[in-house]
């Protein structure tokens, strides 16, 4: 049990560092055991250092940096233990356009092993989708699906 845990931990940790550096274009991040003497009960802390910046409390990161760090950890876990499918509801809302593009590019890579359904308002994310479903509310306040081309969807968000 402890050995399985330690292997999962070290693999996710390695992935976390790699995905973070990929999404941030540099920098480092890792998971840290709060109590190395007691692996069976130790908690886990997160250290995240965007490129060029000093290692500081996670709370001092910007809204977009926090979101991208969380996304890095999510992707790291999915790389270690792929979920058959994953539904993401606007998780890239705080990212600027450059970060959305990096996120979308990495999503394509991870999507080889996990099926993604992403609810999004962002052009960069729409552009990497294989299928696009448009949702709208009709005059009776009932949801209906509408066929949607990428170009229409993109023009609605820019």
């Amino acid at each position, binding site marked *: 049990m402890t050995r399985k*845990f330690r*292997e*999962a*931990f070290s693999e*996710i940790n390695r992935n976390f560092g790699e995905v973070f550096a990929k999404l941030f274009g540099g920098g480092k991040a890792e*998971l840290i055991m*709060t109590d190395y003497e007691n692996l069976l009960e*130790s*908690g*886990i*802390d*997160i250290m995240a250092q965007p490129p060029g910046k000093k290692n500081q409390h996670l709370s001092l990161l910007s809204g977009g940096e*926090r*979101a991208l*760090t*969380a996304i890095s*950890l*999510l992707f790291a*876990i999915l790389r*270690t*233990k*792929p*979920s*058959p*499918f*994953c*539904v*993401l*509801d606007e*998780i890239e809302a705080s990212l600027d356009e450059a970060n959305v593009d990096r996120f979308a590019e990495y*999503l394509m890579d991870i*999507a080889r092993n996990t*099926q993604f*359904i*992403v*609810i*999004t*308002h962002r052009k960069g994310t*729409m552009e*990497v*989708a*294989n*299928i*696009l*479903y*448009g*949702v*709208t*509310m009709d*005059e*009776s*306040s*009932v*949801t*209906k*699906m509408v066929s*949607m081309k990428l170009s229409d*969807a993109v023009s*609605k*968000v820019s």
Partner: protein
Amino acid sequence: MYLKRLEIQGFKSLADKIDLQFNQGITAVVGPNGSGKSNIADAVRWVLGEQSVKSLRGARMEDVIFSGSDRRKPVGMAEVSLTLDNSSSVFPLDYSEITITRRVYRSGESEYLLNKASCRLRDIHELFMDTGIGREGYSIIGQGKIDEILSTKSEDRRTIIEEAA
């Protein structure tokens, strides 16, 4: 193993039947504020056996049934069916496809079906145990919830790693 089809009727704002097909790639769902996108995510969460009304943004389980609008009367039942590919036999069942269905009536009465055969909620929970889908883990990240991955307590993060182990 992947999600093939999602059929929703009477669930929240999806009063009229919605039938979504998925392939193994990335599917994007787009649309204006309040159109029903997150309701579709809620439908997936619900059919997988979600018991917490709070995770479904409601106050009572009855809140997931279409409650009507200016121009439409409420309906009496919500039903969601999820079809998964089982060609790699991830599920220990002799079917190449698994369809789970959940229904709830205004009375509070619920029904669960596995490939059209009546079953209990517990059977659905057990079906997904160890598949990485559903109630634990990260198969559904709700709106505004991505930050929670960072703000969970350090003990909760441990649980996440344990489940991945």
